[in-house]
């Protein structure tokens, strides 16, 4: 397990390879469909400093408010590929070093990871209670009213949030390898 403290340097990120298990610590932000289009409208002042060197997490959490303080109850990853049209530009514009979600992303993002020095981190889907427990504090939330709970950008402090590097900054993608192998088996079974 490789410990990563956020914000992280480009050199540390370039050292990571597909298959590495990492433990994230520090402040990161959630962001999914609405957030990604909003992030590209202009350089958003509310989040630009927080995103530099940090991780954007594709997650729409279950939250609750206790004594005026937000708490994360359940916070697993959502499917990342929906952000494929935007992700590369978001990485470049905000200097993000990690994109975390599930299912992996496509060629455009893989290229952006290499060009900008970033990785794709795969969190276990559906394991939301454990991942919610790794969120120690909610520091704030951006666009809650407009985007709703799942789509808002939550500023969260995590402690030992675990994930696997499944796309690195050297052009490798675990998803591409697995897909190529399973395509071969599937075609044999189907007889095409």
């Amino acid at each position, binding site marked *: 397990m490789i410990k990563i403290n956020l914000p992280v340097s480009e050199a540390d990120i370039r050292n990571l390879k597909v*298959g590495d298990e990492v433990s994230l610590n520090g402040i990161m932000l959630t962001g999914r469909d*609405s957030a990604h289009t909003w992030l590209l409208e202009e350089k958003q002042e509310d989040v630009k400093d927080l995103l530099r060197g940090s991780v954007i997490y594709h*997650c*729409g*959490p*279950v*939250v*609750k408010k206790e004594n005026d303080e937000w708490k994360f*109850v*359940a*916070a*697993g990853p*959502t*499917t990342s*590929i929906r952000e494929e049209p935007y992700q590369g530009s978001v990485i470049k514009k905000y200097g993000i070093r990690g994109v975390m979600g*599930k*299912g*992996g992303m496509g060629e455009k993002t893989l290229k952006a990871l290499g060009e900008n020095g970033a990785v794709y981190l*795969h969190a*276990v*889907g*559906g*394991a*939301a*209670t*454990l*991942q*919610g*427990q790794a969120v120690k504090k909610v520091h704030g939330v951006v666009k809650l009213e407009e985007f*709703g*709970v*799942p*789509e808002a950008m939550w500023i969260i402090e995590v402690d030992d949030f*675990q994930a*696997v590097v*499944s796309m690195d900054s050297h052009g490798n993608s*675990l*998803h591409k390898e*697995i*897909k190529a*192998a*399973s*395509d071969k*088996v*599937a075609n044999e*079974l*189907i*007889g*095409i």
Partner: protein
Amino acid sequence: MSFKLDVDKFKDAITELIRKASTQLPADVMSTMEKARNKEEKGSPAKSVLDYMIKNADAARDNSTPICQDTGTLIFFITIPEGVSLRKIESAAAEAARSATKKSYLRPNAVDSISGKNSGDNTGIMAPYYHYEEWDKPTIKIELMLKGGGCENVSDQYKLPDSRLKASRDLDGVYKCIIDAINNAQGLGCAPGVAGIGIGGDRASGMVVAKKQLFRKLGDKNSDPELAKLEKRLYTDLNKLGIGPMGFGGLTTVLGVKVGAAHRLPASFFVSLAYSCWADRRCTMHFSESEVSYD
């Protein structure tokens, strides 16, 4: 004799049904996951991912928090005694959904498709949604499924014949469609999943048949010998794809395959796949005038 529905009691019972479905992985799914973990190679990502999933399911049950933050679409399959008011049932179920959202058993998950606005309480147009049957027992049975978006997005529907797959209008053609669909899904539907399959029907009823299969226990056996054979063949071959838990590779790509059929038009032959993620959240409630039980 008509069934007297105590609406308040009924609402609370459904709230509890939602809590159980969201926070407690069914026992048959849990034991299948444990078997899968034991089978995967020592030190493999597949084994550690399954282990993490199982630990998460235990923690969710212990803390009464959602297994997955995507608490899904609320799909109710309801069986009623003669004469029970559907309007009363739906108003109680909607009230229960609101209450379960307030208690954080559910994420606000109903978005207006035109304005993009989240209703905030899991109710809206066709949300939740309901299927009905009637029986002659003095009990209301409610089967609830919480179907997440990731696995719904990789669900699919084929129309036979399919020339790309060289699939004709027979069970072998059905087999080819499902191999193709699960291969396309990769890890995106949170593998290892459960494949609910509907053969025939129209585009809507075929998918209902597919979804209904997901209520079957993983260890059960199809009463139709032909379909039982197809389930077994698909289960064995899908697990040869090597996609594995979360698509990281491994021996476990599906936990189960369940097939049902409906009559079709002579002109149509649909194959519908309702894919459920490993967090296969379903729970059944029996509600009579005197008692409530859950399974």
